[in-house]
């Protein structure tokens, strides 16, 4: 693998991971709303 390929993989993991965690928080809020029957 070329050096830029490793760098790209690292950035995808880093920023993709951050986005994924943020999305997981959104999903947990939606689950809470379903449990609670939010208005």
């Amino acid at each position: 693998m070329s050096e830029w390929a490793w760098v790209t993989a690292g950035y995808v993991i880093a920023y993709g991971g951050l986005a994924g965690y943020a999305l997981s928080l959104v999903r947990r809020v939606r689950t809470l709303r379903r449990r609670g029957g939010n208005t």
Partner: protein
Amino acid sequence: MTPLFGRKLPITAGVLIAVAVAADMVSPPDRIQGELVRLMYVHVPSAWIAFLSFGITFAASALWLWRRQPRFDRLACASAEVGVFFTGLAIVLGSVWGKPVWGVWWAWDPRLVTTALMFFVYLGYLALRRATVDPLARARRSAVFGVAAFVQVPIVHLSVLWWRSLHQPPTVLRPGDPTIDHRMLAALLLSLAAFTLVFLVLVRARVRLAAAEEAIEAIQAAEDRELAGSAVTAPRVEGIRIDV
């Protein structure tokens, strides 16, 4: 209804990420590692933010033990969870960097081992919270754990000085001037600023989530006691408002 992530801070964080990534890409390659050095701009901030997270957990835990206010428990928990995420990210990014540079995904190196230990200990903190049903007991046990576990942060940081290590010794957080090219340092600091803003966004959202979870828990516990007494759990009642 309060937006989970807010508005201004996520936008600012997004802009700063874009600027940081641009700076990372135009910074010079390393004499020895070439382009691979750019992984420093995501790996190092992840580790630093992990330290910051656990520092906040430590402070919030101590404040809870002193004041017994629920907001400190929420902050400690939120920061610990985000810290576990950033620690895991630092480990994974370290592997991605280590494979082409060291030739291995993992080494039984003091820095790597102490970081992995720290990851599992704080994972244990989250597991402890999950396993404790009573809110007051949960907050008390977590607070003691959160204070004690922080000892690992200086151990991880100083591990490269105390023991023989493959890992690079500190280049910024050390006595004297940083031993790094100033253009690389600028890109690193920009990336750190971007990661810090993202950290603030995530912790704030996680605290709001924790408040909503506690509100539901408290209402359901009160309804259970009202309907059937504290010895029996009643069916859950719908129609509970969550203000997130």
